[in-house]
């Protein structure tokens, strides 16, 4: 199913590509009638350089064991260059593969030193093994996708036991489990540089929830009503930060109906 799907996806972008590849192309194909993002879709259709290479080989009904290295290298590199000229972001792995292909091609042109003691592996064998292994995995992955699976092909039987009044013990949780889980989340987030969690003190987050709760059910509240004298200076600061944060996140609006009038706060609703 997967194979068929990908095949379909590739139909459209492939036709013009083959056209370009059919004749040596010179410049960035400005008159290309498929927009660059279609090529991006094309690129997305591949799971990596091995996948692309397999596709190029299979498209011509070639045998993995008998790849015309020069021809395939040309096609692959032309493809990479086109991607590059369209300034599409290309994963480094694609370039590594281009380098490997070029190396194999050049290696085949040179005579091998007869006296090389070290049994260096033929780079073709290396590539063929990788292609074979990847193709085998790709095939079984497709077959796994077809296996009857829960929630799609089979469903668990849900029989009610509530009438038996049997108590189901709730899972026990230690606070440490939660902290550990959050520590993991933070570590993961740190690895993704683009995602920055701002670190407001917890008291502020808690107060934000409390203020929303207070606002729930009332149209609006006087700004002053959100502060409790008995909490002292720290409490006021926490409340103030919470109000600012809620406003920043677009959850509440702070309103002043006329100059010098008292500020009021209300939950933002669809205008």
């Amino acid at each position, binding site marked *: 199913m997967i194979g068929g799907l990908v095949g379909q996806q590739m139909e459209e972008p492939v036709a013009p590509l083959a056209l370009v590849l059919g004749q040596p192309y010179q410049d960035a194909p400005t008159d290309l009638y498929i927009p660059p993002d279609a090529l991006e879709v094309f690129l997305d259709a591949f799971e990596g350089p091995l996948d692309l290479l397999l596709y190029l080989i299979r498209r011509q009904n070639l045998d993995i064991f008998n790849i015309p290295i020069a021809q395939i290298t040309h096609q692959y590199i032309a493809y990479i260059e086109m991607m590059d000229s369209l300034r599409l972001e290309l994963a480094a792995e694609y370039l590594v593969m281009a380098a490997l292909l070029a190396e194999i091609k050049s290696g085949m042109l040179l005579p091998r030193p007869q006296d090389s003691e070290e049994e260096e592996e033929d780079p073709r064998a290396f590539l063929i093994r990788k292609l074979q292994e990847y193709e085998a995995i790709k095939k079984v992955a497709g077959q796994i996708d077809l296996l009857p699976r829960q929630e799609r092909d089979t469903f668990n039987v849900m029989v009610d036991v509530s009438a038996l009044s049997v108590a189901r013990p709730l899972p026990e949780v230690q606070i440490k489990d939660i902290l550990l889980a959050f520590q993991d989340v933070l570590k993961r987030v740190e690895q993704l540089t683009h995602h920055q969690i701002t670190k407001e003190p917890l008291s502020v987050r808690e107060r934000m929830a409390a203020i929303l*709760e207070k606002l729930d059910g009332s149209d609006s509240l006087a700004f002053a009503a959100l502060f409790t004298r008995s909490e002292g200076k720290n409490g006021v600061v926490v409340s103030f930060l919470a109000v600012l944060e809620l406003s920043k996140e677009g959850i509440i609006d702070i309103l002043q109906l006329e100059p010098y009038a008292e500020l009021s706060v209300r939950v933002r609703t669809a205008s």
Partner: protein
Amino acid sequence: MQTKHIVEAILFAADRPMSVRQIQQVFPELEQPALHEIQAAIDAISTDYLHRPVGLKLLASGYRFQVREGLAYWVSRLFAEKPGRYSRALLETIAIIAYRQPVTRGEIEDIRGVAVSSGIIQTLLEREWVRVIGHKDVPGRPALYSTTRQFLDYFNLSSLSELPAMEELVNIDFSHTHQPPLQQEKSERPQTDQSEADTLKAAESKTE
């Protein structure tokens, strides 16, 4: 395919009582059997299960397969055997709600980088550890979740600020401490070494 066959499958797969009308709605529009036909199927199924340990029961909101009453003794032993445990995903979700409240499901998913199933939110709501305190004014008006008093009570916290601050949390090494890293050690629940060891193992195996 026979109507009766399909109705039986629907009743077994449903996680809620199903009225005759609701069963009809499950069929695609052009294939819906008449209500009396569905009722006839239900009656026939009821008869089929008369002598089995599960049977169709008519509740206020519809029909549902139930385990028969005389079997409570064994079924309760089934549940006692394994009290269950919460998934990693659930723990992360409750942690994010505690630290980032008020927060929407979408925001939780953003932080986790993985989808949050409705089952998790449902479990947390049912356990009354989180609740909806409002809706965010963005398309879809997603619910804003926060933790509850019950959540604090369960963990013997008087306020969220007793949890370690985020900056500290990153640097706490749980593998060397056997005490929860709270300012005050308040927990009265026994902490077995076994469960701690498991937690740590899980934590270790996850961190690379």
